[in-house]
């Protein structure tokens, strides 16, 4: 077998490991977002998050004015298991500068 550089190659999941015990931002399907502390994850991106805030976003369009009405609802959970198949994106929290 030809020696490849693959032993040094980092996988995206390796880089998520760097975020363990850090706060992260997770974008989920169905216009949901989570912010919480990453306690654990696996290759499916199942995750255990602590001290979590979930934001659900919905956009209504007014029939007459075509105005976009953006609504968000939030809830807070001390502990949460997230099933990986709903995950779209994971990132360190967005900083509002």
């Amino acid at each position, binding site marked *: 077998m030809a020696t490849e550089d693959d032993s040094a190659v*980092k*996988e*995206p999941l390796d*880089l998520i490991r760097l975020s363990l015990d850090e706060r992260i931002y997770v974008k989920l399907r169905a216009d949901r977002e989570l912010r919480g502390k990453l306690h654990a994850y696996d290759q499916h*991106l199942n995750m255990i998050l602590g001290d979590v805030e979930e934001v659900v976003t919905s956009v209504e369009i007014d029939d007459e004015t075509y105005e976009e009405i953006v609504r968000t609802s939030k809830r807070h959970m001390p502990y949460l298991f997230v099933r990986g198949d709903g995950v*779209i*994106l*994971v*990132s360190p929290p*967005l900083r509002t500068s």
Partner: protein
Amino acid sequence: MSGGAGGGAVGSAKTPADFLKSIRGRPVVVKLNSGVDYRGILACLDGYMNIAMEQTEEYVNGQLKNKYGDAFIRGNNVLYISTTKRTLGD
């Protein structure tokens, strides 16, 4: 039949796996099944098309919506990964 892609200097990639190995470090566009676009520099990716990117910008309907310093995208959401000559402010 001439093979090879037109844009980006990836002429010698023969299989999708070769392409994936050759584009690390390049600016890319990742389009998701949902239609959302992410532009950034590809840090790494794996065979499931899970992606890690840096300096990521999120475009929804062509509009810049968010910026992420680092972003990990779950591969099942990815429609395609494309290299781009990234012009800032495009």
